[in-house]
């Protein structure tokens, strides 16, 4: 069974910027090799590594619901940087190692955000949808509603289902989101995220 995680990191969020400039914060979050990469590749690199770590955690926690997020235990590897992309983003592929498990990541680096998705079994042959939206002026407390609306709209379009028949619920114990279609668990694996003005999701439609 394959699980997916996703994470969006706002590059303009003041708290993020302050944290990733704090040496002690970096020491607690990244291993020495990652710290060397941050020195080498510049200001956006810690944001990229973090989004990969968190997206990997969100996939791994579905395999072990009790797992807490300890960023330093998720080590990110990108091949010698060969960015691909057109327009105003750069796309990167990578791997995350956690306790002997290797997970596969894809990331998109833009001027004001980094979005990463991660799968426990890679992306080959999978029908995956993902997306993000920038919501200017949305109060922080309304971000969850915004990301649900984004997912429902995308799923309705992809599956040709009326939006009124799709609901996003969270498992009470694990807080893992579940897409309900016609009041039944769709069994599609779903991951939601938001940060600052951004909301994002990734979903395995089928394997």
């Amino acid at each position, binding site marked *: 069974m394959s699980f997916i995680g996703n994470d969006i990191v706002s590059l303009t969020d003041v708290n993020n910027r302050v*944290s990733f400039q704090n040496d002690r914060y970096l020491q*607690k979050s990244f291993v020495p090799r990652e710290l060397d990469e941050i020195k080498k590749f510049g200001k956006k690199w810690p944001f990229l590594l*973090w989004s990969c770590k968190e997206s990997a*955690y969100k996939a791994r926690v579905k395999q072990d619901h009790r797992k807490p*997020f300890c*960023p330093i235990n998720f080590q990110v590897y990108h091949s010698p940087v060969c960015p691909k992309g057109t327009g105003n983003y750069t796309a990167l592929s990578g791997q995350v190692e956690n306790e002997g498990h290797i997970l596969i990541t894809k990331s998109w680096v833009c001027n004001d955000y980094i979005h990463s998705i991660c799968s426990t079994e890679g992306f080959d042959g999978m029908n995956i949808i993902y997306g993000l939206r920038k919501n200017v002026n949305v109060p922080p407390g309304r971000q969850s509603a915004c990301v649900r609306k984004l997912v429902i709209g995308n799923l309705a379009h992809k599956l040709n289902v009326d939006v009124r028949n799709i609901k996003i619920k969270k498992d009470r114990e694990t807080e893992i989101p579940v897409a309900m279609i016609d009041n039944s668990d769709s069994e599609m694996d779903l991951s939601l995220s938001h940060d600052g003005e951004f909301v994002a999701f990734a979903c395995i439609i089928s394997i």
Partner: protein
Amino acid sequence: MTATDINNKITGILSKYVFNKKLILKATPDFRLTKDLKINSARVVDIVLDIEDEFEVEIDNKSLEKIKTISDLTSLVNSLLSAKK
């Protein structure tokens, strides 16, 4: 430092990172930082750094990976302060 002092200081640190202040008012020791208090996971590391500064202790990675709830933080601070004596 009494247990109440420790709890109050930890609550004060957490409240900096909780957007919905009502959550911190009704928080119980078993509240999870990210799930129940809705603290962004990137801020959990900030909380650990604030606790290190406030209590003049050092929290290692082994301890960091065990922190899920308010109670985990309180127990950790108590044990670190006891070890300092």
